[in-house]
Every structure is written in C-alpha cells, then in structure tokens.
C-alpha cells in the first residue's frame, strides 16, 4: 500500500514539475500544437500527394504528439533535477529505485492520448476525415503500446539529459529518428536499406502498422506481431534506461559528480 502511495506521489510530483498545471502550457502542448501540426502536414500532403497520403499523414501527425508530449515532460524533468539540485535526494535515498524511475512517465501518457484525440477530432472537423470502420480496441491497444515504447525511450534518454544538461537537443535528435524512421510520414518500405533495418527497432514503427490496420477496420489477427514487437521495444528501452540510470548513480556516488568524463 505504501509503495503504491509513494508511486502515485512521485508520479504526481514529476508531472506537476513539468508545468502542465499552467493552462496555456497545457493547451499549447496538448491541444494547439498537435492540432496545427496535423493540419500543416495533412494539408501539405492533400494538395501535393492526394487524399490517401493525407489520411496517412493525419495518423502520423496525430501520433507524433506522443513523443512531443512525453519527451517534453520527461526529458526536461531529468535535466531540471540536476539544475535544481534535487537529484542527490534520489542518490542518497535508502528507498528502492525502480518505482521512482518508472513513476516519472506514468502521468504524461494520458496527455499524449488527449493530444491524439484532439488531432483526430480536428481532422474530422476541418478535413472531412472519417473514422467510420475504425477498430477502436485495436487502435487503443496500438496507441498504448506506442505510448509505452516512447516513454521507455525517453526514460533511457533521461540519463543522457542528466549528464549533458541539454534535454532540448537530445529530445530534438530523438524526434528526427521518430519523424523519419518510424513510418509516421515516410512509409518504411520507401526508406533506404540501412534506415529500413534500423526502423524496425525505432519506437512507434510497429505501432503505426497496427494502428493503420485498425483504421482500415482490420482486427487483431495479423497484428499481434506488430503489437508484440512494440511492447518488446517498450520493455527493452525501459530496461536499458534503468540500467543506465543505475550506472550513473553509482558513478555519481563514487566520484561526487554526474559527468562521466
């Protein structure tokens, strides 16, 4: 019970620190930005490549709200803990490490889902986008897997934010991989050889396959592989992130600083 309570508290504090309680900050990041980016790319695709690609871009743009929202909340949290000097509290604590580490990402996930919903609603409202025939359950599971894998990757990148103190650069670099390799905009089969191979382990790539199948009205049959792969990437990223965080913690405890050099 205590562990659950602490987990909830930690998740809440981590969430509150990310300025989500500011109405403009929340509205800008969770509603306005995802909606406008969807409009920008879907309109660009519609006028230059046709309706089919535009519909694919609607899904891609809507889902890129996931890394935007989660990396904004998580990565800056890691960096600011170093700036604000609260990181030593973790390191000197006698409590467990895994739950506080995992708790950082939990409350950002619902924001990502709100952002996606706003984007899709905007596409229906402004671009006559149709969700008729959507397999809601498959779409929901695919989105949850994508949220988990992006959260895992951001947790893994968090350690780099503590060391390098530049969450914006690290987050933007991660976004380049998401935007170009995950298949949200550029179909994975159009990528050159090496990039296509790498895209298989980029978070969201398999989720996009399952999500597009859901929008085509397909069921779970034939999509378990994609969902399983996305979930496996989520687990692997989280495990790598936790390992990196523990290594940094040991280095910091031994040397008295967070820098690895």
């Amino acid at each position, binding site marked *: 019970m205590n562990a659950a309570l602490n987990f909830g508290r930690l998740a809440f504090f981590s969430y509150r620190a990310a300025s989500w309680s*500011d109405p403009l900050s929340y*509205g*800008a990041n969770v509603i306005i930005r995802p909606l406008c980016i969807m409009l920008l790319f879907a309109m660009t695709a519609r006028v230059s490549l046709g309706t089919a690609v535009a519909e694919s871009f609607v899904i891609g743009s809507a889902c890129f709200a996931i890394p935007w929202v989660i990396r904004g909340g998580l990565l800056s949290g890691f960096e600011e803990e170093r700036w604000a000097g609260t990181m030593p509290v973790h390191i000197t604590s006698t409590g467990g490490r895994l739950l506080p580490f995992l708790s950082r990402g939990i409350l950002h996930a619902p924001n990502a889902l709100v952002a996606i919903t706003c984007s899709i609603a905007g596409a229906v409202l402004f*671009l006559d986008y149709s969700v008729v025939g959507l397999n809601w359950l498959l779409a929901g599971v695919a989105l949850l897997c994508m949220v988990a894998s992006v959260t895992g990757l951001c947790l893994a990148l968090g350690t780099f934010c503590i060391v390098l103190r530049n969450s914006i*650069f690290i987050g933007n670099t991660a976004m380049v991989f998401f935007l170009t390799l995950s298949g949200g905009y*550029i179909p994975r089969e159009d990528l050159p050889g090496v990039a296509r191979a790498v895209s298989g382990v980029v978070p969201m790539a398999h989720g996009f396959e399952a999500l597009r199948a859901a929008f085509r009205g397909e069921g779970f049959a034939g999509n378990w592989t994609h969902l399983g792969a996305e979930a496996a990437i989520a687990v692997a990223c989280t495990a790598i992130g936790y390992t990196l965080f523990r290594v940094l913690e040991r280095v910091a405890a031994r040397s008295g600083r967070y820098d690895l050099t």
Partner: protein
Amino acid sequence: MSYLRVFRMAFVMEWKEMLSMDGIMFSFVSTLGTGIITAWILSNAPAGEARDHIYFGTPFLAIWVQGMSRTGLVLQREVWQGTLELMVPSRSPLFVVMASRAVAIATAGLPPAALILGIIYAATGYVPAIASAGLFAVGCGVALVAVVATSLLFSPLIFIYAQKSAVLNAVWPVGAALGGFLYAPERLPAGLEVLARLLPTSWAIEALVGAARGTESGASLALVWAIALTAVIGMVMLTAWLFVVAERRIRVTGMLAR
C-alpha cells in the same frame, strides 16, 4: 543614432549566442526532420504549383519555427540566469533590443534553411526554374521581412508571460499551419483561410511562388507585396506599442513575468 547602436549591439550579442555550438546544433537538428520529410514529399509529388510552393515555402517555415523557438528559449534562459532584469532599467527600449535579436535569429536561420534545400537536392535533384531572378529576389526579401515581423509580434507576450515556452508553443504551430508556407491559403477550409490572410507571410510566400514560376504579372505581384508590407508595418507598430505597455507594466508592478 543611439537606437542604431543598441540595435547593432543586441544583434552582435544574439549572433554570438547563435554561433555557439549549442545554437548551431539546435538549429540544424531542429530542421533535419522537416528537410527529410519535405524531400520525400517532393520526390513523390507531381510537378506543378503545389510542389513549387512546398519547395519555396519550406526554408521560410524553418526560419519561422527557428525564430519563434529561439526567441522563447533565449528569453527563458535569461530568466533562469537573471540577466533579463538588466534589460528593464536600461534606457534602451525593449522593442529595439528585441527587434534586433529577432533579426539576428532570422539571419541565423538562413543556414538551416539552406540545409533543407541541400537535403531536398540530394534526395530528389529537384531545383525549380526561376522565371525572373529580380522579382524572385524581391519576393525572398519581402518573405523574410514578413517572417521576422510576425515572430516579433509575439515577443512582448513571450517577454511578460512566465511560461515562455508555453507562449511560443501556442504561437508557432498556428503560424506554421496558417502562414501559407507549404500551401496556398485558399486550399485551407473556408474559416481558416480568413485567419491565414491576416498573416503577411501567407501573402509574401504566395507572391514569392508566383514570382519564381512567372505566373503573375509584375503589377499583380506589386499589389500582393504592398498588402504584405502594409500588414508588416501594422504588425511592427502594434509590436512597438505592446512593448511600451509591457515595459510600463513591469516598471509599475515590479514583476517581470506573471
């Protein structure tokens, strides 16, 4: 004369900040994704006005996004470092300082814009023909001025609002979607087209594409440029007034940000 000196010094200061490794990496990494996606779109799009619009508008979109992001980021960092307060008791008007910094940031946005064109060329080999180099050069100048003026309009708001990143994240996507960078405003749904027409960038980019393709006469381009520049002048005057209001509010309340 003293305002010119203020303008020059603020420009130099911002320019040096932009030339730091941090500034350069931020600029290039931020535009890399957009460049690759645009290259893919252009490699699949049929020849025509829509494709040319994307080609000519993407660099200005990059400058717009860079300008907004950098302005917010720079001011946020100044708050953290406690140097923003120094600007308030100074005799130099905030408007002059911020205008200079906006120009510096936009100028520093040119290399990332060139990077995007480089990515497009490497991926597609596509370089549209320019019908009239002179009109095209004027079009580029007007588009750049429109981008700077539009980004400057939101500086007073970024200046006085505590969550600076919130303001810029609320503004730049709207400008990107409605600023006419990647498609003509008339392609937007009816209600949104009206909003897009309020932004000088939508007129300026439209004229730029027309000048490059040679589909518009000199007189009709001049008219569109006149509309864009009138909107720019209006925006600059409004920005100057907003800065005076912000400055007064800060001096009276003693609070830099709310």
